[in-house]
């Protein structure tokens, strides 16, 4: 599966674009996170990697800006394992290990559409970063 971030401008936000793409390509698309209002919005979706390219084209044709979501990265030099970020993560990507170290699972992180943990870090050790590959496996 590949995670891609769909950005909808104000002009196209009311159109049922995601539904149209699903119907046209007959590919299941699961919505991981969504933030939309009348001014536009973002949807983070997961698509089968075999169909990713086709689907990205289909979204782009309809005026959607498609990017790979930024995920968070914890700077282990700065982090002192307080855990202030833990309870803010909606997908349990951050957890405490047995030895009370903060552990981060990038496969669960939904990244930029969420960002809830970023401003909770007292030493600013959490940053949103571009992913190097074309998303997770």
């Amino acid at each position, binding site marked *: 599966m590949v995670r891609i971030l769909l950005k909808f401008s104000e002009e196209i936000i009311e159109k049922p674009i995601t539904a149209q793409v699903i119907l046209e390509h007959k590919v299941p698309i699961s919505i991981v996170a969504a933030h939309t209002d009348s001014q536009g919005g973002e949807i983070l979706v997961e698509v089968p990697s075999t169909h990713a390219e086709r689907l990205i084209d289909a979204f782009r044709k309809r005026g959607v800006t498609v990017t790979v979501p930024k995920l968070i990265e914890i700077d282990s030099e700065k982090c002192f394992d*307080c855990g202030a970020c833990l*309870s803010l993560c909606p997908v349990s990507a951050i957890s405490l290990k047995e030895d009370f170290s903060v552990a981060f699972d990038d496969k669960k992180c939904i990244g930029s559409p969420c960002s809830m943990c970023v401003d909770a870090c*007292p030493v600013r050790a959490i940053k949103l970063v571009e992913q190097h590959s074309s998303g997770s496996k």
Partner: protein
Amino acid sequence: MREKKTSGKRSKRSITEINEKIKKGDVQVLTAEEMKKLVESSGVEIAYKEVDVVTTGTFGAMCSSGAIINLGHSDPPIKIHRAWINDVEACHPGAAVDLYLGATMMSDIKPFEYGGGHVIEDLIMGKEVEVRAVASGTDCYPRTKLNTTLTKDDLNQFYLLNFRNCYQHYACATNSRDEIIYTYMGKLLPKFRNATFSGSGVLNPLMNDPDYETIGIGTRIFLGGAQGYIIGEGTQHDPRNRFGTLMVRGDCKKMDPQFIRGASITKYGTTLYLGIGIPIPILNEGLAKKTAILDEDILTNIVDYGVPRRERPKLGEVSYEELKSGAIVINDKKVKVSPLSSLKKARIIAETLKSWIENSLFYLSGPVERLPTDMVLKPMKQTEEIAFVNTVMYDAVTCTEHDEIKEVANRIISRSVNHVIVADEQGKLKGIVTSWDITKAVAEGKKKLVDIIVRKVLTTTPNESLEAASRKMAQHQISALPVIDHNGKVLGIITSEDISKLRGR
């Protein structure tokens, strides 16, 4: 010569004896976590016999921290009136070049992101800082301006001097409001969707000696990676409620940046995270028992920080065992919890202190005076009356979702208001409609009220301060707030117009 007591079962252990053992290298030290295990497996009697010292540790945000700095005299000399280090204003409590830099003082240039705590950390790390000062100039201190750069090696004294550190335990924070709030207890999600807590529970220094038998003025401690001292009870020391605190002092020049860090709590401000560890000499069997305290026995209140009052509502009790498990139950719902202090560092501190003692690098000192055990924490005496929402709120003009737009428009005119609150049959808040919404509906030809109701409504409660309510309205650019009770029932309304009138009086 010391006389051995022979009346009891065993002679009591003294600090002098323990220090002799430390010198010889055969002292028995356990961390507080190890002590619980030993007591659990072998009992208090054996634990008392075998263990000389139990080490504790905590690493958390300690806001009432700061550093005493002596800059040395300039030539010509200056009697500083105001001074800044890396744009953070220091206070100048004494003679010419003595400064006190508070951890929560924020930078003039980067407030909320950089502050006194960061300056202290930077200095300890060996970084160069910029010092700027102004003065009025006197016959003996003619200089009026100063600009220089310094490192810790250039300072005469650089001591951590903290008024209130190391709380015995602390409340667990959550938020009833319908919005995210940023507090000194961290970021709290709306409607009790998360909680935070502070403190290391079983490793907490004061919790392991709750009657302060061995902790007092002169007790040598681990402070920020160096050896420091307790110089008295901390401000707001509240021993009867197990909210004991400490005043401490230590030499910053010897501290380790691993155990002392500047921090920024979003929308609250800057602070200092500090590591403190206290050795508890096991002088009697009672102390062996006390240091075996369990997380499940350390209870604290779940407190609603959504109510910004001195007495915040308590929602229940929770143990540190539950808090450390990562989730607690609030109003029958499982809620994730964040520790704000580092439990990992607390453990490292207790272990480091243990190894110092085992390696004859740290000797114990008994208190020359014990901490008070019976003082009471007083609230502030206030001479000015503070207004709360309940003094300004009035009955709201309401309607139901089924009313016609025209009816609501008539009500707005006849009652001469701008806001109509939408409530259900039980009086519960469903939304709000303003005269502007009605005007817009007419212009757009909308007929049904349900199409124009604003459903996401910010609210207030009767005991919120007017200042907090006005802040909320200003922040969200709105002009009124429905007043509701804890069940969402509408009690009234306050408007920014009414608050302005009150202020104008």
